[in-house]
């Protein structure tokens, strides 16, 4: 794979990662690499283990022995979630999970929780986030629960960005949103990436995810079954059949 050789600066490396829920194994030793500056996506059906992968990286769930997760060449396998953020990995979790009774501003402040001493920097970043999401600025004094679904998703991403992460992980940012808003959000993800943040994206909406991603992994029943560039995966017949809806594709061709 030439693309792997071209970008050799490794940011995140998962090797042989196993995760168990009670007695059920959910991830069966997966290997994933993310290089600095990339957008990498993990696609797969419901229950394939996509969210589990992100939770495992972010330290929310324990990994079994022999699993190895390295971030910037340092081992973070057994770090707890609150320590993983400190290293520079932010997760915008599945279901948004904004703080419903905190205002938009307070939610963003919580995103920058670990940067409390850098008041000037936090202020500037909040301005920057507000230019990226003008809707949030209009509603900055409203509590999180009064926002619409799209605004909540924007807030979740904005909140993750406030930690100034080196790696931004997004769990299903398109869920439950109108197509136009999904487009906006992916436009912003591209913008964020252009400004230098590496992105690891988990999506059920494979089409839009692959169209922005440099590389993609296909996760099936807790195994990585395919990995390639975003473009190649979009063209791949198997992927089209399984995740993009082959019949629609054939109809269009005809």
């Amino acid at each position: 794979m030439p693309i792997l050789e071209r970008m050799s600066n490794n940011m995140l490396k998962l090797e042989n990662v196993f995760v168990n829920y009670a007695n059920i194994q959910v991830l069966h030793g997966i290997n994933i690499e993310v290089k600095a500056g990339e957008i990498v996506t993990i696609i797969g059906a419901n229950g394939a283990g996509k969210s589990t992968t992100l939770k495992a990286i972010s330290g929310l769930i324990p990994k079994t022995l022999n699993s190895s997760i390295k971030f910037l060449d340092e081992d973070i396998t057994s770090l707890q979630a609150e320590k993983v953020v400190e290293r520079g990995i932010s997760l915008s979790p599945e279901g948004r999970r904004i703080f419903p009774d905190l205002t938009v501003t307070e939610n963003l402040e919580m995103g920058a929780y670990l940067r409390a001493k850098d008041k000037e920097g936090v202020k500037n970043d909040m301005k920057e986030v507000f230019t990226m999401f003008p809707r949030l600025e209009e509603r900055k004094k409203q509590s999180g629960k009064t926002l619409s679904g799209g605004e909540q998703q924007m807030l979740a991403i904005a909140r993750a960005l406030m930690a100034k992460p080196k790696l931004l992980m997004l769990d299903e940012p398109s869920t439950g949103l109108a197509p136009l808003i999904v487009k906006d959000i992916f436009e912003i993800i591209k913008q964020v990436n252009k400004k230098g943040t590496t992105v690891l994206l988990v999506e059920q909406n494979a089409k839009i995810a692959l169209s922005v991603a440099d590389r993609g992994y296909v996760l099936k029943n807790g195994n990585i079954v395919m990995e390639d560039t975003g473009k190649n995966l979009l063209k791949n017949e198997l992927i089209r059949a399984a995740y993009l809806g082959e019949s629609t594709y054939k109809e269009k061709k005809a």
Partner: protein
Amino acid sequence: MNFFLQQLIQGISMGALYGLIAIGYVLIYNAWGVLNFAQGDMVMIGAFAILIAHVYMGLPLLIAFPIAIIMCCIIGFLVEISAFRPLIDANNTRRLIATIGVGIFLRNLVRVIFGADPYPFPSIFGNTAVNIGELKIIPQNIWNTVIGFGLVILLSIFLKQTHIGKSMRATAQDREAARLMGINVKKNMSITFIISSALGGFAGMLICPVFFVIPTLGTLMGNKGFAGALLGGITSNPGSMIGGISLGILESFGAGYFSSSVQAGIAYAVLFLVLIFLPAGLLGKKESRKV
């Protein structure tokens, strides 16, 4: 009219203390998802702490108060790390039972050390009544109200304005998301328990000139605080203060206009009526919630 005002003042002053206890229930319910049935016993711990510091050690009140508060904080912290922290991910029933167990343990520990006899406690603020018009107000009533409201205002400033306060609210709303922000959830839970222990303990210190100091003081006061918290809507800090004060006023009128034997039952009547007719309380969230 004078009698009415007199009873009202008496009710508000007692209610302010109920409010302090109630707010401890609310803080922990929000952060932890279950009621803390040991909250009343922290009131009793507060009363014994001031008894030790003031009567036994003979310290003047200005020194005895801070020492007693520190004792409450320490005991609250010890209870949290030994009994509650190990159960942070356990189901609600187990945690609820743990709080009941802690209550029984504290009550009986104090009984073993101090015996079951009631201890009298001298008046804190003096007994000379202040005359305003024809009203006679004893200093205790004024101070209870001032301190009660003062602490609640301080608490809400702390929760709304400070970095740590905001992160405590975030932790209460979504513990997992809070961890993703880098918030030290364990520390915040400890602080929550310490603050509610201190508030409950404070109520206990202010109450001991009125009641005798006995190991079962917590059961009595805990029930009143619980009724106040429920009346205010178990999730709302200002609500619990309003609930506590409403309960205090109701009790005071009940005792004044009917008979003092009615007084003891009012908290329970409020509990029943709120549960049946106003399950969300005065200021609580309207949606259904886990118990």
